């Protein structure tokens, strides 16, 4: 037996350390389709509870949309269940090519390549297009999948302070002698809900001859006037060289991702990106669903407009009730509680009130910045938001934090 007592003990100890550090993650089983209301079994074995979901990435409410389900059913019937091959052997169908073209049109880029997930897109893209003669300069708060991709790439890596353009410029000057330079950022930062200032970043990239990379996973489909993403919001549709994004959030929420951008960069991914070369791509049933999602979003901005209104309503309600929010104008609305225990207890009490929203604390966010991250959806109706607000106010009163300053909350509960 190779899994000896000694080996077992090492792992048990590591798992205990995770538990003792308050970092143990537990799944909650959902017995219904993803929606504004869900049926949850938590803890395991307990009776199902109907709760309002305030923490999903189902920004446009398309995860269970009848037209998307119908398209997925048709895709399953016409193109089967699995491909049993990677793309370049016999794993590419006409609908994969069709989806790539549709994404290119939707994002207004030159070309697109699908990946099994955006995690895979970010893991594979840098290594495929940069070498040890080049440099990657990333915002210090970029998503974990970008960090992993950077680790796999031989190019030099440097960082700039979050959204600090002066610091970014200094870094571009420091690395001016590199063959290729790439500035890397998230479009919308998922923990704070703020957006990267792509207009200023694009100007700096032009000045110093650097490429601009944006992960728009928390933006594609709803940020910008017609929902094309952060590059639309900042009026730089033609100035972003690479966009990576996911179909696992607003765009139907199933799975899959892509790299979209300059033709040559996409071609390099097709030749060299390892998650593309050595893994099956997105299943036909999902591809068919995403194609429908893009059709819906290209015809009308109704859903992103509703999302914007819902997010404004939610922010206004929480602010008037006396909560401290992270400033922003996206559907990610973090309610700041600062103390990790308070965030955990607050989340538990919300659940008792029928509201599903999760507390985030160190190391996911900096120490003393614990929060409940709420995410608004076009699937929410005003009555959902009113019910959620009522629960937040009730729990807020219990902990006596309404109308209190950051200093007062920290004095009461600690950092």
């Amino acid at each position, binding site marked *: 037996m190779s899994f000896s007592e000694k080996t077992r003990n090492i792992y048990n100890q590591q798992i205990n350390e995770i538990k003792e550090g308050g970092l143990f993650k537990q799944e909650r089983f959902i017995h219904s389709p993803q929606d504004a209301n869900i049926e949850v079994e938590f803890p395991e074995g307990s009776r199902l509870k109907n709760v309002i979901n305030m923490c999903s990435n189902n920004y446009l409410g398309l995860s269970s949309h009848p037209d998307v389900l119908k398209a997925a059913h048709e895709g399953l019937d016409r193109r089967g269940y699995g491909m049993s091959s990677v793309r370049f052997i016999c794993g590419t169908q006409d609908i994969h090519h069709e989806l790539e073209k549709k994404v290119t049109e939707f994002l207004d880029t030159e070309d697109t390549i699908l990946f099994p997930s955006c995690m895979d897109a970010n893991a594979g893209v840098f290594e495929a297009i940069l070498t040890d003669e080049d440099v990657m300069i990333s915002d*210090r708060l970029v998503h974990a999948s970008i*960090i992993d991709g*950077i680790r796999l790439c031989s190019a*030099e*890596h*440097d*960082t700039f*302070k979050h959204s600090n353009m002066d610091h970014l410029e200094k870094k571009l000057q*420091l*690395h001016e002698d590199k063959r290729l330079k790439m500035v890397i950022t998230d479009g919308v930062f998922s923990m704070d809900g703020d957006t990267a200032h792509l207009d200023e970043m694009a100007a700096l990239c032009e000045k110093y001859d650097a490429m601009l990379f944006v992960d728009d996973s928390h933006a594609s489909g709803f940020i910008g006037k017609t929902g094309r993403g952060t590059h639309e919001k900042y009026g730089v549709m033609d100035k972003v060289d690479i966009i990576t994004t996911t179909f696992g959030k607003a765009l139907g929420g199933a799975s899959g991702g892509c790299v979209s951008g300059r033709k040559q960069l996409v071609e390099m991914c097709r030749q060299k990106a390892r998650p593309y070369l050595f893994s099956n791509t997105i299943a036909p049933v999902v591809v068919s669903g995403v194609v429908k999602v893009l059709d819906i979003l290209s015809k009308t901005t109704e859903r992103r407009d509703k999302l914007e209104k819902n997010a404004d309503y939610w922010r206004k309600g929480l602010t008037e009730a006396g909560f401290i929010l992270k400033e922003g104008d996206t559907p990610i609305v973090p309610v700041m509680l600062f103390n990790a225990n308070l965030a955990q207890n607050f989340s538990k009490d919300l659940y008792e009130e029928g509201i599903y929203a999760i507390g985030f604390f160190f190391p996911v966010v900096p120490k003393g910045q614990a929060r409940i991250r709420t995410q608004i959806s076009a699937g929410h109706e005003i009555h959902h938001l009113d019910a959620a607000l009522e629960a937040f106010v009730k729990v807020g009163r219990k902990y006596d934090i309404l109308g209190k300053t950051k200093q007062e909350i920290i004095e009461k509960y600690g950092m």
Partner: protein
Amino acid sequence: MDEDIKKIVLDYVIEEYLEDEDEKITYDTPLISGGIVDSFSMVSLKRFLEKKYQISIPDDEATPEAFDSVNSITELVEKYIKED
């Protein structure tokens, strides 16, 4: 130890890595093991020192241990200034 180099390294670390103005560090504060500088961000510090002092620090000497305090960084810089 060269006080000028120490001061320059300290100022650079404060300017480059500290986000909070209230945060204070000294010549001995553990930077990497203390979570102030992540090992990724060491790259810019190394590059800054190499450009500033016209030296080349080999990658195998640029360890997290050697970059863990202003004092240890200064020692490393002085070693290569002398070698040059």
